[in-house]
């Protein structure tokens, strides 16, 4: 077993050796939705966490992350005063293959891969008059209750394009636009009607990551 690991390390090390691994914090703004209705509008949220970029040479690298990210939905009625919003906070691990074209000080990148996330917390906010805003914790239902239950694990596809700037001394600042497309509905119905609505996470994220060379 130890021998296998050694072989693996010997194969990977020369590839990694072409450039340096970078890690760094990231933060961004999400524009999310879970379904389409006559009332749905983009729901805004935050994302923050950390990223690691492991280069393999030739502009190819693998980027992994651990992020706390807010998804959910927002519905409004007659303007923005009457609304209903779910903020669903997920702990998310994306893993992406990345291709970077490097220029003087600037680089352009595109990456794609998958993510796995866990719905850790939820909260509703709603108002019927624009003044009295009601906040409620989202209560998870792990077993079917009235034919409904929550699905807290999500898995999906993710793609991103962006630009980075490396003339900052010790690090690289990357600006990215990402789209995450959930493949697992956040809810399950025991006897789904023909017009059943399944909530699937769809998120655009604009983020900044500051990569530091290890």
């Amino acid at each position, binding site marked *: 077993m130890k021998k296998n690991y050694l072989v693996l390390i010997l194969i990977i090390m020369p590839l990694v050796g072409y450039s340096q691994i970078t890690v760094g914090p990231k933060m961004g703004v999400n524009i999310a939705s879970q379904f389409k209705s006559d009332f749905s509008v983009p729901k805004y949220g935050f994302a923050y966490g950390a990223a690691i970029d492991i280069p393999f040479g030739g502009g190819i690298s693998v980027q992994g992350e651990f992020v706390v990210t807010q998804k959910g939905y927002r519905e409004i*009625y007659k303007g923005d005063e009457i609304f*209903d919003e779910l903020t669903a906070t997920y702990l998310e691990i994306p893993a992406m293959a990345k291709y970077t*074209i490097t220029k003087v000080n600037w680089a*352009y990148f595109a990456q794609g891969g998958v993510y796995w996330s866990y719905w850790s917390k939820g909260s509703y906010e709603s108002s*019927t008059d624009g003044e009295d805003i009601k906040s409620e914790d989202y209560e998870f239902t792990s077993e079917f209750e*009235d034919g409904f239950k929550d699905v807290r694990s999500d898995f999906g596809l993710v793609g991103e394009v962006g630009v980075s700037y490396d003339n900052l001394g010790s690090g690289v600042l990357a600006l990215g636009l990402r789209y995450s497309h959930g493949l697992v509905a956040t809810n399950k119905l025991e006897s789904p009607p023909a017009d059943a609505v399944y909530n699937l996470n769809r998120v655009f994220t604009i983020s900044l990551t500051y990569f530091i060379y290890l």
Partner: protein
Amino acid sequence: MKKYLHKTLQSVSLCLMLAALISGCETQEIVVPEIEFFIAKEWKIDKFSINGKVMEASEMDPGDLISPYRLKLKDDFTFTQTYIDGTIGKGNWALKAGFSQLILSFTNSGDEISYLINTLEVRQLDVTLMQGIKDNQTGTWDYRYILVPIRGQ
């Protein structure tokens, strides 16, 4: 090839970022004719009170009746009411008196039941039966229901 990829990536990045910013700034105003947004749902009883004495659904034994109750108000203004004994009533619903009353008109029997809407929120409908039930010995009983929507609608 590298130059072409570079140009393509640059263009796609800029276009996507611009599209996201434009869609993010947009304020969408939706005008719909009625307040189905709140009320056209399937509701169940969360709590009810008789003459002010509150009883919560979770405190009751399964045989104590209210858990099977459902009131499905559809957006075509028809409704289906499933009673605590499993029988079903159907008809039309309406909001009257400046949206302060919910009226259920039963198709088969021709009966009409009126509820006073105490509060209507996105996930709570608080109503009082307007024709309080009369009892010869104890007088009129006031019935108040707090309904919550069935999830996954």
